[in-house]
């Protein structure tokens, strides 16, 4: 059984009468110990999905779903109090910009210990010991002395390590990393990524890796979900999805990786932008930008249909074209 099961999740913003779906009919499941990558360009609904799942939208967005289960618990019917017992403990999240994600008024020790106090009731020397242990686990040098440091005294990479220490404090079953390396230097990015993967293995956590860096996903993830304009357009195992993308959007994403365009004068790009609130087409959301667009694509919206390797939301998957 999957650890996390999301069925037909929509997140709606704005007025009741004319809602805007930032996420629409999203299906996703994650098993224990699995690394799932979610990729897509900015505004495709990657972060909003995870925030909605954790109940962090705070009344700004309305959440509708057929199923939203984590570890046997129905997150849809859970009271806010019950949900708070899970988040930060069994599901935890790290964010994009570590320099703003830590509270500037408290020492990093306080912020790590806070999680342990709230969720595990630790106190006194056991609390401090565990905090130092966690900081060592995320490879912060001289952990005991860093306990009293304030976030502004740490570099971005160190801050992200602190954020990770906070997130893994209660041995979560699921860790969501929302672009954990985007705001960091390239050299630090690799360190943080390998730290995350090591922790995932040693703690047997499930890891959802939200990113727009396909190279990272290719290296570490087991499965990949590609999102576009609030929908999952393709899902599949790695490396299949890299070898044989089924959806035109996935193909376009892959061909925009600089390494794939070696020798070309310009990077391959998909013209246009993700449709916003007022310019969503009635047909397939990619239809205005799709190089393979057909009449049917403009008229109807395709559903996400399972195929041999995973699932794809396209009337004319690319493998079918090859066969023709």
């Amino acid at each position, binding site marked *: 059984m999957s650890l996390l099961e999301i069925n037909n999740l929509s997140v709606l913003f704005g007025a009741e009468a004319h809602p805007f779906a930032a996420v629409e009919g999203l299906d996703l499941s994650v098993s224990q110990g699995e690394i799932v990558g979610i990729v897509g360009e900015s505004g495709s609904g990657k972060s909003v999905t995870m925030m909605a799942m*954790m109940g*962090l939208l*705070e009344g700004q967005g309305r959440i509708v779903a057929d199923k939203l289960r984590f570890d046997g618990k129905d997150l849809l019917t859970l009271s806010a109090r019950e*949900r*708070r*017992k*899970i*988040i*930060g*403990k069994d599901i*935890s*999240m790290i*964010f994009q*910009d570590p320099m*703003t*994600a*830590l*509270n*500037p*008024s*408290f020492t990093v020790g306080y912020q790590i210990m*806070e*999680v342990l106090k*709230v*969720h595990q009731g630790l106190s006194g020397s056991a609390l401090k010991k565990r905090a130092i242990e966690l900081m060592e686990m995320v490879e912060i040098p001289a952990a005991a002395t860093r306990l009293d440091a*304030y976030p*502004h*005294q740490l570099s971005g990479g160190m801050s992200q390590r602190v*954020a990770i220490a*906070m997130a893994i404090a209660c041995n979560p079953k699921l860790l969501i990393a929302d672009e954990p390396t985007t705001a960091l230097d390239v050299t630090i990015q690799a360190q943080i990524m390998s730290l995350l993967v090591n922790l995932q293995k040693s703690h047997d956590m499930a890891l959802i890796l939200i990113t727009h860096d396909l190279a990272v996903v290719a290296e570490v993830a087991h499965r990949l979900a590609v999102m576009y304009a609030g929908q999952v357009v393709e899902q599949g195992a790695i490396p299949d999805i890299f070898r044989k993308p089924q959806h035109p959007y996935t193909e376009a994403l892959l061909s925009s990786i600089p390494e794939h365009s070696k020798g070309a004068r310009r990077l391959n790009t998909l013209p246009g932008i993700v449709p916003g609130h007022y310019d969503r087409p009635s047909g397939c959301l990619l239809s205005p930008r799709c190089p393979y667009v057909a009449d049917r694509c403009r008229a109807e919206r395709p559903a996400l249909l399972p195929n041999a390797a995973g699932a794809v939301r396209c009337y004319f998957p690319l493998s079918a074209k090859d066969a023709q």
Partner: protein
Amino acid sequence: MFSFILRRLWLLVPSILGITLLTFGLIRMIPGDPVEVMVGERTLDPALHAAALHRLGLDKPLYLQYLDYAGSLLHGNLGQSLVTRVNVWDEFTTLFPATLELAISAMLFAVVVGLLAGVVAAIKRGSLFDHGVMGLSLTGFSMPIFWLGLLLIMLFSVRLGWTPVSGRIDLAFDIPVRTGLMTVDAWLAEHNDPANFAGAFKDALAHLILPSIALGTIPMAVIARMTRSSMLEVLREDYVRTARAKGLSPARVIFIHTLRNALIPVLTVVGLQVGTLMGGAVLTETIFSWPGIGKWLIDAIQRRDYPVVQNGILMVALLVILVNFIVDILYGIANPRIRHAK
């Protein structure tokens, strides 16, 4: 932390120098001198006038007068009132506790009500409560103190008869002065001699309520608005989202992670409001016949009592500076980024 305090202390020197220059200059810019004012409508023999001025040292060039003044200040000598011949320091210390009591009580009202209203308005942004608080605070901020004071007296003292009209305590009580703070003295008197002073403390408190509200309304409005906008800003911060993602209770997220950071700009505003408070005390004391330094300074200005005006205002200014100095230090404690700044 120590060097932080030293650096801040060093910055006080030019402020104090500026204040002495300002008060010294401003009072001398008002037409008329102390002798003319004392004589009033009667004609004044120029020779006597000159002799009197000479005796007071007011015939010297201005820079010499200033140097004399600064010199005696450096010796800790605030001089005597030209009118009452009483030492300025003694007059100040006798009257100051009344003002202090009023100011503390007004500030307490302003901070408690302002903070609470601001926090709740921010959490319930756009609600009826939010609009109500913001509307009321704008009204309170725009209302002149003397007008608000009179309205309060009209309603609560005259119409409803809930509070006394003026003064610090009912004249029937002859409270022995211990601290100079009437509520404390009344409580002590009642505690030591319950038979003679029954109800004294309650009466002193009742006298304090209206002046505190009149004086505290403007700072309260400023604090409420500042707290609200500061809270709204911090609530959008990434670290508040982190705090929520940690599964902390809403109370913890609001009062520890948000308010702690939102308080930093509010703290500065509170410090600055102490100045407003001392200015407002002059009006409030006049309306409620509150025997503090506000009334004393007004009288001194009218009499061109140079030493009282110069040093009385200097004392008040020092107080405001001191409070803002303390606020600066608190600011450093509240905000580690400032404390560690080089």
